[in-house]
């Protein structure tokens, strides 16, 4: 079980780049994606630093080499199911915080030198989102995030619904 858990953790680490891309997408989209509550917003400039962008991708690449589970993807279609664009940044905040606390910090001695630079960068983003809340019911968001947490913690393999078209992240 421990090895499986580790593998899934790597898998989460490996999808960090995808999550960053999603954050980029959120930051880039002016009208549609940015909630009126301005705290749930990251400035585009956060993602326009080549140094840290490259490091994040390098870290994801290194981690993906340690992750031989190609079937399980933590940041994918299922995570965003039933979550509208305005709520996505809030969702990603939850994922980001969980990733930092439960995945990255416990393994922060690994994947050097990328880790030592990427973790503070993501921690800064998390800090910038600390005031981000949503007013309406967020049960559905917590359910999705909880699924992801359970997958990482218990090493459960995600169910087969994954054959759906997961390409939406790139399209958005």
């Amino acid at each position, binding site marked *: 079980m421990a090895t499986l858990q580790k593998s899934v953790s790597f898998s989460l680490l490996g999808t960090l780049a995808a999550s960053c891309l999603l954050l980029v997408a959120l930051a880039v989209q002016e009208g549609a994606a940015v909630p009126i509550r301005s705290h749930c917003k990251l400035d585009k400039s956060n993602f326009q630093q080549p140094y840290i962008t490259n490091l994040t991708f390098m870290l994801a690449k290194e981690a993906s080499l340690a992750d031989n589970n190609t079937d399980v993807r933590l940041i*994918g279609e299922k995570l965003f199911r039933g979550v509208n664009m305005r709520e996505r940044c809030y969702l990603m905040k939850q994922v980001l915080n969980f990733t930092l606390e439960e995945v990255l910090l416990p393994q922060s001695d690994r994947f050097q030198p990328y880790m030592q630079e990427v973790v503070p960068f993501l921690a800064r983003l998390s800090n910038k989102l600390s005031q981000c809340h949503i007013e309406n019911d967020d049960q559905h968001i917590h359910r999705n995030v909880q699924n992801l947490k359970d997958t990482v913690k218990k090493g459960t393999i995600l169910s*087969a619904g994954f054959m759906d078209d*997961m*390409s939406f992240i*790139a399209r958005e």
Partner: protein
Amino acid sequence: MTPKHCFLGFLLSFFLTGVVEAQPAHVCLKPQRVHFQSRNFHNILHWQPGRACAGNSSVYFVQYKMYGQTQWRKKEDCWGIQQFFCDLTNETSEVQEAYYGRVRTASAEIHSGWTMTQRFVPWWETKIDPPVMNVTRVHGSLLVILGAPNTPYRNQKGKNVSMENYYELVYRVFVINNSLEKEQKVYEGAHRVVKIEALTPHTGYCVVAEIYQPLLDRSSQKSEERCVEMP
């Protein structure tokens, strides 16, 4: 399985099979260095044949999938082929997605195991070609017209989609004065039409350009030189 376990397992199987007999054919047939090479989102899977025991009659089978999918998909055009590459451009067209490819060999009825690529994200890994460049002389100046390379994709009107649709791109234009043989950067920016002025008459100038991707801090190779003699 942790890498350490894998390695131990590998050593074990290596010794077990290696000592008792020569390596079984399905092991040494296994394709090597299976990887994607990507230029302007033309994503080609490449590999090398397995070690020496492979015969001349080896054929290869290619599968691919998007990261997170449980099923591998067969690439029909690359099923039982003899060459060492396979074009997966159409299969990997969501450029910000992550993909895997894998290859196996068959030789004289014996199948090798699969060899898989690393996780491949086209948006991150593709290499951008130099800009397309045209230089014309207009009176005492040079007009440089630049364009980004095309991707394999077409828009709804059927026109080619340029790399500019996927990245913020910056053009850099350099001029080489033939008499001084010195290269000088005369422009950096997003404009596709650049006018170079204040040139000396009766002098030859050569122009080259490159594309810079600020977000990734990468540049293309330089374009071919275009040379013009000033009147």
